[in-house]
Protein backbone atom coordinates (compact mmCIF):
# COMPACT_ATOMS: atom_id res chain seq x y z
CA UNK A 1 0.00 0.00 0.00
CA UNK A 2 2.81 2.38 0.93
CA UNK A 3 4.71 1.31 -2.15
CA UNK A 4 1.68 2.08 -4.31
CA UNK A 5 1.49 5.51 -2.76
CA UNK A 6 5.17 6.07 -3.39
CA UNK A 7 4.80 5.29 -7.05
CA UNK A 8 1.58 7.27 -7.32
CA UNK A 9 3.34 10.26 -5.82
CA UNK A 10 6.47 10.05 -7.89
CA UNK A 11 4.98 9.19 -11.24
CA UNK A 12 1.57 10.79 -11.35
CA UNK A 13 1.52 13.42 -8.60
CA UNK A 14 -1.82 11.93 -7.62
CA UNK A 15 -1.45 12.34 -3.89
CA UNK A 16 -1.54 16.11 -3.70
CA UNK A 17 -5.04 16.19 -2.21
CA UNK A 18 -4.15 13.63 0.45
CA UNK A 19 -0.97 15.52 1.25
CA UNK A 20 -2.88 18.75 1.54
CA UNK A 21 -5.37 17.17 3.93
CA UNK A 22 -2.73 15.63 6.17
CA UNK A 23 -0.77 18.87 6.24
CA UNK A 24 -3.57 20.32 8.38
CA UNK A 25 -2.62 17.74 11.03
CA UNK A 26 1.06 18.47 10.63
CA UNK A 27 0.65 22.23 10.91
CA UNK A 28 0.11 22.42 14.70
CA UNK A 29 3.22 20.31 15.24
CA UNK A 30 5.27 22.43 12.91
CA UNK A 31 3.87 25.61 14.42
CA UNK A 32 4.74 24.57 17.97
CA UNK A 33 8.22 23.49 16.95
CA UNK A 34 8.88 26.74 15.13
CA UNK A 35 7.74 28.77 18.15
CA UNK A 36 11.02 28.60 20.10
CA UNK A 37 12.98 29.22 16.92
CA UNK A 38 10.96 32.28 15.96
CA UNK A 39 10.65 33.27 19.62
CA UNK A 40 14.40 33.20 20.02
CA UNK A 41 14.73 35.45 17.03
CA UNK A 42 12.18 37.85 18.46
CA UNK A 43 14.00 37.81 21.79
CA UNK A 44 17.26 38.63 20.03
CA UNK A 45 15.50 41.48 18.29
CA UNK A 46 14.00 42.87 21.47
CA UNK A 47 17.24 42.91 23.42
CA UNK A 48 19.28 44.83 20.88
CA UNK A 49 20.60 48.00 22.42
CA UNK A 50 19.26 51.45 21.72
CA UNK A 51 22.54 52.37 20.10
CA UNK A 52 22.32 49.45 17.69
CA UNK A 53 18.74 50.32 16.92
CA UNK A 54 19.67 53.88 16.12
CA UNK A 55 22.53 52.79 13.93
CA UNK A 56 20.22 50.38 12.19
CA UNK A 57 17.58 53.03 11.76
CA UNK A 58 20.12 55.43 10.33
CA UNK A 59 21.37 52.85 7.88
CA UNK A 60 17.89 51.87 6.78
CA UNK A 61 16.89 55.49 6.34
CA UNK A 62 19.88 56.12 4.13
CA UNK A 63 19.12 52.98 2.17
CA UNK A 64 15.49 53.96 1.84
CA UNK A 65 16.44 57.38 0.50
CA UNK A 66 18.77 55.79 -2.00
CA UNK A 67 16.17 53.26 -3.12
CA UNK A 68 13.47 55.90 -3.38
CA UNK A 69 15.67 58.05 -5.56
CA UNK A 70 16.37 55.12 -7.79
CA UNK A 71 12.71 54.18 -7.85
CA UNK A 72 11.79 57.63 -9.12
CA UNK A 73 14.13 57.09 -11.97
CA UNK A 74 12.74 53.61 -12.54
CA UNK A 75 9.20 54.94 -12.68
CA UNK A 76 10.21 57.35 -15.40
CA UNK A 77 12.12 54.63 -17.22
CA UNK A 78 9.21 52.23 -16.91
CA UNK A 79 6.84 54.72 -18.52
CA UNK A 80 9.32 55.41 -21.25
CA UNK A 81 9.87 51.71 -21.80
CA UNK A 82 6.12 51.15 -21.99
CA UNK A 83 5.75 53.95 -24.50
CA UNK A 84 8.53 52.56 -26.67
CA UNK A 85 7.06 49.09 -26.49
CA UNK A 86 3.69 50.53 -27.35
CA UNK A 87 5.30 51.97 -30.47
CA UNK A 88 6.65 48.54 -31.26
CA UNK A 89 3.22 47.09 -30.53
CA UNK A 90 4.37 44.71 -27.85
CA UNK A 91 3.62 44.99 -24.19
CA UNK A 92 5.13 43.49 -21.10
CA UNK A 93 3.72 43.34 -17.66
CA UNK A 94 5.67 45.21 -15.07
CA UNK A 95 5.13 44.30 -11.46
CA UNK A 96 3.09 41.54 -9.88
CA UNK A 97 0.96 41.09 -6.81
CA UNK A 98 3.13 39.87 -3.96
CA UNK A 99 2.67 38.51 -0.45
CA UNK A 100 5.27 38.21 2.30
CA UNK A 101 5.58 34.72 3.82
CA UNK A 102 7.61 33.61 6.84
CA UNK A 103 9.66 30.46 6.81
CA UNK A 104 8.63 27.99 9.50
CA UNK A 105 11.63 26.90 11.53
CA UNK A 106 11.10 23.20 10.97
CA UNK A 107 13.14 20.42 9.51
CA UNK A 108 12.40 18.73 6.22
CA UNK A 109 14.07 15.70 4.68
CA UNK A 110 17.83 15.92 5.15
CA UNK A 111 19.56 17.73 2.27
CA UNK A 112 16.31 17.98 0.31
CA UNK A 113 16.53 21.78 -0.28
CA UNK A 114 12.98 22.59 0.62
CA UNK A 115 11.49 25.16 2.96
CA UNK A 116 8.10 25.30 4.68
CA UNK A 117 6.19 28.58 4.47
CA UNK A 118 3.39 29.78 6.73
CA UNK A 119 1.00 30.62 3.90
CA UNK A 120 -1.35 28.17 2.18
CA UNK A 121 -4.40 27.93 -0.04
CA UNK A 122 -6.29 30.14 2.40
CA UNK A 123 -3.99 32.94 1.35
CA UNK A 124 -4.31 32.11 -2.33
CA UNK A 125 -1.05 30.18 -2.70
CA UNK A 126 -1.09 27.80 -5.66
CA UNK A 127 1.09 24.97 -6.98
CA UNK A 128 4.08 26.14 -9.00
CA UNK A 129 3.91 29.67 -7.64
CA UNK A 130 7.21 31.57 -7.90
CA UNK A 131 8.96 32.52 -4.67
CA UNK A 132 11.56 35.29 -4.49
CA UNK A 133 13.42 37.10 -1.75
CA UNK A 134 14.95 40.56 -1.68
CA UNK A 135 17.99 39.42 -3.67
CA UNK A 136 16.59 37.11 -6.29
CA UNK A 137 14.61 34.04 -7.23
CA UNK A 138 14.32 31.56 -4.36
CA UNK A 139 12.24 28.70 -5.74
CA UNK A 140 8.69 27.58 -6.39
CA UNK A 141 5.82 26.04 -4.46
CA UNK A 142 5.65 22.25 -4.67
CA UNK A 143 3.01 21.33 -2.08
CA UNK A 144 0.16 23.44 -0.76
CA UNK A 145 -1.97 22.81 2.30
CA UNK A 146 -4.62 25.09 3.74
CA UNK A 147 -2.21 26.77 6.17
CA UNK A 148 1.26 25.87 4.97
CA UNK A 149 3.09 25.29 1.74
CA UNK A 150 6.41 23.76 0.77
CA UNK A 151 8.74 25.47 -1.63
CA UNK A 152 11.50 23.79 -3.58
CA UNK A 153 14.66 25.89 -3.75
CA UNK A 154 16.27 26.60 -7.11
CA UNK A 155 19.33 24.63 -5.99
CA UNK A 156 17.24 21.46 -5.76
CA UNK A 157 18.40 19.03 -8.47
CA UNK A 158 14.76 18.65 -9.56
CA UNK A 159 14.42 22.34 -10.24
CA UNK A 160 14.94 23.95 -13.64
CA UNK A 161 14.49 27.65 -14.35
CA UNK A 162 14.50 29.40 -17.73
CA UNK A 163 17.04 32.22 -17.55
CA UNK A 164 18.94 34.62 -19.72
CA UNK A 165 22.19 36.52 -19.47
CA UNK A 166 21.31 40.09 -18.56
CA UNK A 167 24.11 41.59 -20.68
CA UNK A 168 23.20 40.09 -24.03
CA UNK A 169 20.05 38.05 -23.61
CA UNK A 170 21.54 34.59 -24.25
CA UNK A 171 18.98 32.10 -23.02
CA UNK A 172 19.64 28.97 -20.98
CA UNK A 173 18.12 26.70 -18.35
CA UNK A 174 19.44 26.95 -14.80
CA UNK A 175 19.24 23.66 -12.92
CA UNK A 176 20.13 22.79 -9.36
CA UNK A 177 22.91 20.36 -8.62
CA UNK A 178 24.77 18.74 -5.80
CA UNK A 179 26.11 21.82 -4.09
CA UNK A 180 24.85 25.33 -3.46
CA UNK A 181 25.50 26.41 -7.05
CA UNK A 182 23.34 26.27 -10.17
CA UNK A 183 24.51 25.10 -13.55
CA UNK A 184 23.39 26.41 -16.92
CA UNK A 185 22.33 23.85 -19.49
CA UNK A 186 22.36 24.33 -23.24
CA UNK A 187 24.90 27.15 -23.44
CA UNK A 188 26.82 26.69 -26.72
CA UNK A 189 30.60 26.60 -26.36
CA UNK A 190 30.98 29.73 -28.44
CA UNK A 191 28.33 31.71 -26.54
CA UNK A 192 29.41 34.98 -25.01
CA UNK A 193 29.08 34.17 -21.31
CA UNK A 194 31.69 35.58 -18.96
CA UNK A 195 32.48 35.25 -15.28
CA UNK A 196 30.58 37.94 -13.38
CA UNK A 197 27.62 38.10 -15.78
CA UNK A 198 24.27 38.64 -14.11
CA UNK A 199 21.75 35.89 -14.83
CA UNK A 200 18.07 36.88 -14.71
CA UNK A 201 14.85 34.92 -15.16
CA UNK A 202 13.69 35.01 -18.77
CA UNK A 203 9.97 34.50 -18.21
CA UNK A 204 9.87 31.75 -20.83
CA UNK A 205 7.87 28.82 -19.62
CA UNK A 206 5.37 31.20 -18.15
CA UNK A 207 5.86 30.24 -14.55
CA UNK A 208 8.38 32.77 -13.37
CA UNK A 209 8.03 36.45 -14.21
CA UNK A 210 10.85 37.84 -16.32
CA UNK A 211 13.62 40.01 -15.03
CA UNK A 212 14.25 38.76 -11.51
CA UNK A 213 17.95 38.22 -10.70
CA UNK A 214 18.88 34.57 -10.35
CA UNK A 215 22.64 34.64 -9.82
CA UNK A 216 26.06 35.54 -11.02
CA UNK A 217 28.28 33.48 -13.30
CA UNK A 218 31.11 32.09 -11.22
CA UNK A 219 32.89 29.78 -13.61
CA UNK A 220 32.81 28.95 -17.31
CA UNK A 221 34.51 25.77 -18.52
CA UNK A 222 34.76 25.17 -22.26
CA UNK A 223 35.95 21.74 -23.27
CA UNK A 224 36.95 21.30 -26.91
CA UNK A 225 34.76 18.76 -28.65
CA UNK A 226 31.84 19.20 -26.26
CA UNK A 227 28.96 21.19 -27.77
CA UNK A 228 27.91 22.92 -24.56
CA UNK A 229 29.95 24.96 -22.10
CA UNK A 230 29.83 24.13 -18.40
CA UNK A 231 28.65 27.26 -16.62
CA UNK A 232 28.39 27.52 -12.84
CA UNK A 233 26.17 30.19 -11.30
CA UNK A 234 26.08 31.32 -7.68
CA UNK A 235 22.47 32.11 -6.67
CA UNK A 236 21.94 35.69 -5.59
CA UNK A 237 19.03 34.89 -3.26
CA UNK A 238 20.13 34.13 0.28
CA UNK A 239 18.76 30.61 0.15
CA UNK A 240 20.19 29.30 3.39
CA UNK A 241 19.79 32.35 5.58
CA UNK A 242 16.59 34.00 4.52
CA UNK A 243 13.71 34.27 7.02
CA UNK A 244 11.10 35.92 4.83
CA UNK A 245 10.25 35.44 1.19
CA UNK A 246 7.81 36.97 -1.28
CA UNK A 247 5.15 34.93 -3.04
CA UNK A 248 4.35 36.32 -6.47
CA UNK A 249 1.22 36.27 -8.60
CA UNK A 250 2.64 36.95 -12.08
CA UNK A 251 -0.78 37.28 -13.72
CA UNK A 252 -2.13 39.90 -11.37
CA UNK A 253 -1.14 43.52 -11.32
CA UNK A 254 -0.15 44.99 -7.96
CA UNK A 255 -2.90 46.92 -6.24
CA UNK A 256 -0.70 49.18 -4.20
CA UNK A 257 1.47 50.47 -7.03
CA UNK A 258 -1.55 51.27 -9.20
CA UNK A 259 -1.06 54.97 -8.51
CA UNK A 260 2.17 55.06 -10.48
CA UNK A 261 1.65 56.97 -13.69
CA UNK A 262 1.27 54.40 -16.40
CA UNK A 263 -0.86 56.36 -18.86
CA UNK A 264 -0.58 54.59 -22.18
CA UNK A 265 -1.16 51.04 -21.02
CA UNK A 266 -4.28 51.81 -19.01
CA UNK A 267 -5.86 53.90 -21.73
CA UNK A 268 -6.84 51.09 -24.05
Amino acid at each position, binding site marked *: *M*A*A*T*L*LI*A*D*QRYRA*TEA*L*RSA*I*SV*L*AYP*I*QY*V*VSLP*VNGGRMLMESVTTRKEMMADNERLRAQNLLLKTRLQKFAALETENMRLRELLESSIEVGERALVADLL*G*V*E*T*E*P*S*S*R*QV*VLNKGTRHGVYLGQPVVDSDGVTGQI*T*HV*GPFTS*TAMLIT*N*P*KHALPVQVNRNGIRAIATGGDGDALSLSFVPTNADVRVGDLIISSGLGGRFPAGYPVGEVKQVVRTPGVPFAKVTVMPSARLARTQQVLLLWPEERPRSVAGLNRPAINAE
Partner: protein
Amino acid sequence: MPSTSRGWVIAATFLIALMLTALPLPPWAASWRPAWVAMVLIYWNLAMPERVGLAVAFAIGLLLDVMLSAPMGQNALALTTVSFVTVANHQRFRLYPVGQQAIIVGLLILLHQLLTFLVRQFLTLQKPDPVSHWFPVITSTMLWPWLFILLRDLRRRAQLN
Protein backbone atom coordinates in the same frame (compact mmCIF):
# COMPACT_ATOMS: atom_id res chain seq x y z
CA MET B 1 -11.12 -1.99 26.25
CA PRO B 2 -10.45 -0.96 29.84
CA SER B 3 -7.77 1.60 29.08
CA THR B 4 -9.19 3.40 26.07
CA SER B 5 -9.38 6.66 27.97
CA ARG B 6 -5.63 6.58 28.49
CA GLY B 7 -4.88 6.35 24.80
CA TRP B 8 -3.88 10.00 24.82
CA VAL B 9 -0.64 9.01 26.59
CA ILE B 10 0.36 7.02 23.51
CA ALA B 11 -0.67 9.89 21.24
CA ALA B 12 1.33 12.33 23.36
CA THR B 13 4.51 10.26 23.07
CA PHE B 14 4.11 10.15 19.30
CA LEU B 15 3.47 13.88 19.24
CA ILE B 16 6.68 14.56 21.17
CA ALA B 17 8.60 12.22 18.86
CA LEU B 18 7.23 14.07 15.82
CA MET B 19 8.21 17.39 17.34
CA LEU B 20 11.74 16.17 18.05
CA THR B 21 11.92 15.10 14.42
CA ALA B 22 10.80 18.51 13.14
CA LEU B 23 13.06 20.47 15.50
CA PRO B 24 15.67 22.28 13.43
CA LEU B 25 19.26 21.44 14.35
CA PRO B 26 22.58 22.62 12.97
CA PRO B 27 23.54 20.50 9.95
CA TRP B 28 26.25 18.49 11.71
CA ALA B 29 23.85 17.51 14.49
CA ALA B 30 20.86 16.94 12.22
CA SER B 31 22.47 13.92 10.58
CA TRP B 32 22.90 12.34 14.05
CA ARG B 33 19.25 12.83 14.96
CA PRO B 34 17.88 9.53 16.32
CA ALA B 35 14.87 8.02 14.57
CA TRP B 36 12.56 9.20 17.34
CA VAL B 37 9.28 8.19 15.74
CA ALA B 38 10.51 4.72 14.81
CA MET B 39 11.82 4.14 18.34
CA VAL B 40 8.59 5.21 20.04
CA LEU B 41 6.69 3.06 17.56
CA ILE B 42 8.87 0.04 18.34
CA TYR B 43 8.28 0.56 22.05
CA TRP B 44 4.50 0.60 21.76
CA ASN B 45 4.63 -2.31 19.30
CA LEU B 46 6.46 -4.30 21.95
CA ALA B 47 4.37 -3.18 24.89
CA MET B 48 0.88 -3.35 23.40
CA PRO B 49 0.90 -4.72 19.85
CA GLU B 50 -2.88 -5.12 19.93
CA ARG B 51 -3.33 -1.36 20.23
CA VAL B 52 -0.42 0.08 18.32
CA GLY B 53 0.04 -2.05 15.25
CA LEU B 54 0.56 -1.71 11.54
CA ALA B 55 -2.34 0.69 10.97
CA VAL B 56 -0.93 3.18 13.45
CA ALA B 57 2.52 2.77 11.90
CA PHE B 58 1.14 3.54 8.46
CA ALA B 59 -0.82 6.59 9.65
CA ILE B 60 2.12 8.03 11.58
CA GLY B 61 4.35 7.38 8.58
CA LEU B 62 2.06 9.36 6.30
CA LEU B 63 1.94 12.24 8.75
CA LEU B 64 5.74 12.18 8.90
CA ASP B 65 5.97 12.17 5.11
CA VAL B 66 3.81 15.26 4.85
CA MET B 67 5.58 17.00 7.69
CA LEU B 68 9.02 16.44 6.19
CA SER B 69 7.84 16.96 2.58
CA ALA B 70 9.26 13.55 1.80
CA PRO B 71 8.03 11.46 -1.14
CA MET B 72 4.54 10.36 -0.09
CA GLY B 73 4.78 6.89 1.44
CA GLN B 74 8.49 6.75 2.14
CA ASN B 75 8.23 6.83 5.92
CA ALA B 76 4.92 4.98 5.82
CA LEU B 77 6.63 2.08 4.06
CA ALA B 78 9.66 2.09 6.37
CA LEU B 79 7.65 2.36 9.59
CA THR B 80 5.10 -0.26 8.55
CA THR B 81 7.87 -2.74 7.71
CA VAL B 82 9.68 -2.11 11.00
CA SER B 83 6.39 -2.40 12.83
CA PHE B 84 5.59 -5.69 11.09
CA VAL B 85 8.91 -7.26 12.16
CA THR B 86 8.46 -5.98 15.70
CA VAL B 87 4.88 -7.12 16.15
CA ALA B 88 5.64 -10.53 14.66
CA ASN B 89 8.43 -11.07 17.19
CA HIS B 90 7.20 -8.98 20.09
CA GLN B 91 6.96 -11.85 22.57
CA ARG B 92 10.57 -12.79 21.98
CA PHE B 93 11.95 -9.23 21.92
CA ARG B 94 10.09 -8.36 25.12
CA LEU B 95 11.97 -10.98 27.11
CA TYR B 96 15.42 -9.78 26.13
CA PRO B 97 17.46 -7.74 28.62
CA VAL B 98 17.60 -4.05 27.76
CA GLY B 99 21.14 -4.20 26.35
CA GLN B 100 20.24 -6.97 23.94
CA GLN B 101 17.04 -5.17 23.07
CA ALA B 102 19.08 -2.11 22.11
CA ILE B 103 20.96 -4.18 19.55
CA ILE B 104 17.70 -5.52 18.13
CA VAL B 105 16.35 -1.95 17.95
CA GLY B 106 19.57 -0.91 16.24
CA LEU B 107 18.97 -3.58 13.62
CA LEU B 108 15.36 -2.46 13.19
CA ILE B 109 16.46 1.15 12.73
CA LEU B 110 19.04 -0.12 10.25
CA LEU B 111 16.19 -1.72 8.31
CA HIS B 112 14.27 1.56 8.54
CA GLN B 113 17.21 3.58 7.23
CA LEU B 114 17.88 1.02 4.51
CA LEU B 115 14.32 1.36 3.22
CA THR B 116 14.39 5.16 3.24
CA PHE B 117 17.81 5.05 1.62
CA LEU B 118 16.57 2.82 -1.20
CA VAL B 119 13.49 4.93 -1.77
CA ARG B 120 15.45 8.13 -1.99
CA GLN B 121 18.25 6.58 -4.02
CA PHE B 122 15.98 5.17 -6.70
CA LEU B 123 12.85 7.29 -6.68
CA THR B 124 14.12 10.82 -6.17
CA LEU B 125 16.84 12.96 -7.61
CA GLN B 126 18.21 13.94 -4.23
CA LYS B 127 20.70 11.24 -3.49
CA PRO B 128 21.04 10.53 0.24
CA ASP B 129 24.48 10.93 1.78
CA PRO B 130 25.99 7.42 1.76
CA VAL B 131 27.79 7.94 5.10
CA SER B 132 25.70 10.22 7.30
CA HIS B 133 22.46 8.47 6.37
CA TRP B 134 23.42 5.63 8.74
CA PHE B 135 24.33 7.79 11.78
CA PRO B 136 20.81 7.57 13.28
CA VAL B 137 21.33 3.81 13.70
CA ILE B 138 24.15 4.47 16.17
CA THR B 139 22.39 7.21 18.14
CA SER B 140 19.13 5.28 18.25
CA THR B 141 20.87 2.16 19.60
CA MET B 142 22.60 4.17 22.29
CA LEU B 143 19.42 5.98 23.31
CA TRP B 144 17.16 2.95 23.41
CA PRO B 145 17.79 1.88 27.06
CA TRP B 146 16.92 5.36 28.34
CA LEU B 147 13.91 5.73 26.12
CA PHE B 148 12.76 2.25 27.11
CA ILE B 149 12.95 3.01 30.85
CA LEU B 150 11.27 6.38 30.36
CA LEU B 151 8.38 5.02 28.35
CA ARG B 152 7.99 1.98 30.61
CA ASP B 153 7.66 4.18 33.70
CA LEU B 154 5.25 6.40 31.83
CA ARG B 155 3.18 3.42 30.78
CA ARG B 156 3.08 2.01 34.34
CA ARG B 157 2.14 5.34 35.81
CA ALA B 158 -0.64 5.72 33.28
CA GLN B 159 -1.63 2.11 34.05
CA LEU B 160 -1.68 1.10 30.42
CA ASN B 161 -1.46 -2.62 30.00
